[in-house]
Structure formats: C-alpha cells, structure tokens
C-alpha cells in the first residue's frame, strides 16, 4: 500500500511538472515574442507591454521565467492584468459561485443516469431501450448552447420567469426564504443543462457495463442456483457493474473548471468558466494560465482519488497494487 502510494505520488509529481511547463508555454505559442501579441491593436499601449514583460519576466532566459512565474503564482503575487488584483482571491471567489452549480449538476447526473442505464440494459432491444438510446444520443449530439437557447425561450415564454444570472435582476437581496427560493430556481436550468451531456454519457456507460456483467459466468451461476431474477440483477449483477463508477467520483472534479464555460456564459453565471472566458477575451494571461493549471491539478487529484477509491472497493486491484 505504502509503496503504491509513493510510486503513484512520484508519477503524479512528474505529471504535475510537465503540466506546469505546458501551462506556462502556452503564452509563448503566439508567433514572435509574446509581448508583441497584438501589435495592430491600438489599445495595446507601451504600458501594457511593460506590464506583460514584468509579469512574465520576458527579459530573462526561459527557465528563469518559468521558475519566477510559478513562484509568483504560489506566493499569491500574481496579479490580473485587468484590475491588478491578485489572481488567487479572484479565482477562489468564483469557485464559490461555481460550486452549487457543479454540485446540483452532479447530483442530477447520478440520479438520472443510473436508473436509465440499468433499465435500458435489462430491457435490451425493447422499444424502451431503443427510444432511450436515440434520446440519449440526441442529448450527446446537440450543441449545448442551441439546446439552452431553445429551453430558455420555452421557459420564459411559457412561465414568464427570469432564468439568467445568479438571482432575479433588481430583486432586493434580503435574507429570507424568498431569496433562497429565487436563488434555487436560478440554479435549475443551468445545472440541468450542464448535466444533460453527463447524464447521457454516463447512462450509456452504465448500460454497456451492465450488459457486460449480465453475460458473465457468475450471473449465470446465480440464475442456475434458482435465485429470483431481481436478486440476480440487483444484487449480483448491478453491484459489479457499478464498480467502475466509483472511480468517476474522482474524475468529476475537474469539470468544475472546464465543463462550464459555455453554460456559464449563456446564463451569465459568475463562475470559474466565465471568469476564464472573460480572461481570454481581455487577454488576461495570468488568470488564463492559472486556471488551466488549477484545472490540470484538479484532474491529477481526481485521478489519484479514483485510484485510491478503486483499491478500497475492488479487492482484486490491491493484489496488483505494487505494479500500477
């Protein structure tokens, strides 16, 4: 166990190193020197160029630039180009806005995906299975913003309610039940839309996992013992089919940053994804790079977590642990 942890930790550290290099290298992608990123832009003043040079230490050799950049990032010295506020507090503030969206979305995802997947696996090739298959794939295939616009128009025209933003615009923000209800309502559409693709993908995955398990020998054995079909399906098959999903708990974490750009933009939700998009629009590179880096670190933490969870849940993994 300990060797496994050390080995994985060592590997993750290397991955982290490469991630930090790539995150940093992104600003050097632009042709020529990054400080000349927008020479035709009249608003790109010499002061801005100076700020750029200072933020990224462009007069230093590359490895010094790299070290200094991360020293600034980790010590909280890194400042946004736009308003000269430190980057980290800005991001933390947005995390608190994104978190409810993410939590509700994840909850919806799991509550709908599992029953749907299991039901269509059990009734494979039935009308129900075929209809859900097509609907689920339609949800995977529709451009998220197209679906959002259709849904927003539908809701606004039929129910005459406000759906954009954190809360109804102009409503006094007094503490109380009404404010809470208002905020909860504003969570519904963006989190549901953010969850649709996830529901579709995970339910497909549950379905195929369940199908694989149903044909396994131990399920046939369970049937041969004369167990009731429900016991076979829900006790023997489902438990095994659900194993891989434990790992998904960890893999969901990075969705906090990357998954939400489009939906947060549509719903004017002041979360992480929108912060990133605004930063890209205003070429606020310290924020862009930090966000990319944070997202990658979250992914690393997520995979580590899922490895560990998998070991806890599936005893077969532990035997091979040393080799992973």
């Amino acid at each position, binding site marked *: 166990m300990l060797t496994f942890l050390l080995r994985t930790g060592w590997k993750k550290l290397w991955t982290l190193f490469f991630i930090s290099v790539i995150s940093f290298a992104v600003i050097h992608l*632009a042709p020529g020197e990054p400080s000349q990123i927008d020479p035709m832009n009249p608003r790109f003043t010499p002061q801005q160029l100076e700020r750029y040079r200072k933020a990224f230490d462009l007069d230093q050799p590359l490895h010094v630039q790299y070290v200094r950049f991360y020293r600034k990032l980790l010590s909280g010295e890194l400042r946004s180009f736009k308003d000269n506020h430190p980057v980290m507090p800005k991001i933390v503030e947005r995390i608190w806005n994104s978190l409810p969206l993410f939590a509700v979305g994840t909850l919806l995802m799991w509550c709908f995906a599992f029953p749907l997947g299991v039901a269509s696996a059990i009734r494979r090739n039935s009308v129900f299975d075929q209809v859900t298959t097509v609907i689920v794939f339609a949800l995977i295939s529709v*451009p998220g913003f197209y679906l959002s616009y259709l849904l927003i128009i539908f809701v606004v025209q039929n129910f005459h309610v406000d759906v954009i933003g954190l809360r109804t615009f102009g409503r006094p923000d007094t503490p109380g039940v009404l404010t809470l209800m208002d905020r909860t309502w504003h969570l519904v559409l963006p989190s549901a839309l953010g969850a649709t693709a996830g529901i579709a993908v995970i339910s497909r995955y549950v379905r195929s996992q369940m199908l694989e398990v149903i044909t396994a020998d131990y399920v046939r054995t369970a049937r041969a013992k004369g167990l009731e079909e429900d016991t076979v399906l829900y006790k023997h098959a489902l438990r095994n089919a659900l194993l891989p999903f434990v790992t998904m708990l960890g893999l969901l974490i990075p969705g906090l940053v990357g998954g939400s750009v489009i939906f947060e933009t549509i719903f004017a939700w002041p979360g992480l994804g929108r912060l990133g998009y605004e930063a890209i629009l205003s070429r606020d590179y310290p924020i862009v790079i930090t966000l990319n880096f944070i997202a990658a670190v979250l992914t690393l933490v997520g995979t580590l977590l899922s490895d560990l969870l998998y070991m806890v849940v599936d005893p077969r993994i532990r035997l091979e642990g040393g080799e992973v």
Partner: protein
Amino acid sequence: MGRHTARETRPRDATVSPARLAWRSFLRNRTAVAGMLACTLFFVLALCGLVLTKGDHPILDPRQVRLVDKFRPPLSLPTPRAVAPEALPRLGIYPLGTDELGRDVFARMLEGAFVSLSVGFVAVGIAVIIGIALGGIAGYYGRARLGFGTVRLMTVDTLITGLIDVALSFPSFFLILTVVAILRPSIWNIMVVIGLTSWEGTARFVRAEILALREQDFIQAAHALGVPGPRVIVRHLIPNAVAPVLVSATLGIAGAILTESGLSFLGFGVPPPDATWGNILSDGKNFLFDASWLTIIPGTAILVVVLAFNLFGEGLREAFNPRLRQL
C-alpha cells in the same frame, strides 16, 4: 452426397472472419445502420456543397449579398426587379430562407457542410495519426529503456503513458479556447488544435490492443521470420488493432463538429467568410426572435449529423466487442 455437403458447409462456417461477424452483427442494429446511412448522405451532401459553392462563379453562391432580400423565411421567392438579375438565386427560390445580409441560407449550409466535415476529418486524422504512432510505440517498444549512456531513466512505456496522463489532465475545451485565442482563430488552427488535444483515447486503445496482440503466435511467427519491428507494427499489429481506432475516430468526428460549434458560439470559431454550421448557428442566434430559421436550421443539422456519427460509432463499438455483440 450428404457427407459431401456437410463437409462443404462446415469449413465455410468455421472460417467466417471476425470482421465479417462484426459486420453481420452491425447490420442487425437498426439505429446504427440508420446512423451509417445518414453519415453517407452527409458525405454526399458535403461533396455536392464543394462542387456547387466553390470557385469564382459557383452555381449556388453562398456569398452573394442581397440587402433587399434579407431575413426572408424559407421557401420565399426573391423580390423581382429589386435584386439584380445576376444576383438572383439560381434556384429561383430561397429553399431555406436568407440571413441578415440576404445571403442564401441553403447555399451557406451546403458550403458549411463541407467545411464542417473537413474540420471533423482533419482534426480526427491528426488525432488518429498521433494516437496510433504513440500507442503503437508504447505497446511494441514499451519495455525498451531510455536514458543517457548507462543511466537508464525510464521505459518508453512510462514516458508515453506519462504523456497521455499529462494530455488527459488538461480541460480540453478550455485549453483549445486558450490556444485558439492566442493563435488567432483560423480554420487550420482550429483543426490542428482540436486534433492535438484529442489523441489520448486512440493512443490508449491502440496501446492496450497491441500489448494483447504482441504475445500472440502470429507475431512470434513474424519475429521468427526476421521481420523488422516497424514492419511488424505497421503490417501485422495495427491492422489487427484497427477496430477501436475506427470507433474512436467516428465518435471523434462527432466531437470535433460539436467543439467547432462551441468555439463559434464563444466567438473563436472558423472566421468568416468561410461558413461552417457552427458559425451559421452562432450568428443566427442573434436573430432568434425575428428569424428563428437561422437558428433552427443549422442547429438541427448539427444535431442530426453528430447524432448520425455517434450512432454509427456506437454501433461499430458494439459490433466489434464480442461481449456486447447482439446474438
């Protein structure tokens, strides 16, 4: 006589190749076949689009601006006399209406079909080439050690799986957005960036497949005959590992078309004058209330095509996986 026919039929049944079995099972899956047909139709449409809308004097001109005829709903006729005779639509009608500049949406959709398709294909092509190369090397030469002189740092496999881990760690949509914004959106940048950020799946599948295949007898036989390594990979291993590649490529095209439309929505898609379904849709949404067809037509078109590729790919996946195969 009876014995004779028995002998004839049995070997024929026994020699049904895995590919043929997969194909049979695929044909039994109706939604997948429908997906495949829709994909074929889309190909034909995209090629027609290329023929009909390219060149200086295309048959259907997607760039012809007719300000008098802006925001015409589908199936409306051009205003007689107000539109210059050479600017009249060749069909004599706007089958899918016109946009805010009076351009023929039908012609634009046809042009966009080919552009969207090529974005999907080139991006996936890049991803598949990288994926096969890295996956193949990791699977076949995985045990070789890298290092300087006598210091052996790591195995090839460690290096490549590490690379895959790194690539998987980035939030791909946000990274694509960042890179496209820095490099300037252009159709080539978008293709390349989508391709460079979506090879991990293919690499992992190919690696796993080759790790399983390399222990099999026919590879041992190839080694015994003295076939050099690269040739073993290209001639013997990759053809046998092609099924998962095909599946992830099909799904990848769907993903690339969707990613392009998402980028368009955020203002970093393929820039005009090239029309893609993504940028027709994201331009159209500004006129959602006045001209809803500008949103509904491209949105539904993307939905249908991406759905077709997804159903096709999923059908292939089920057909190639013996455990999921429909019996």
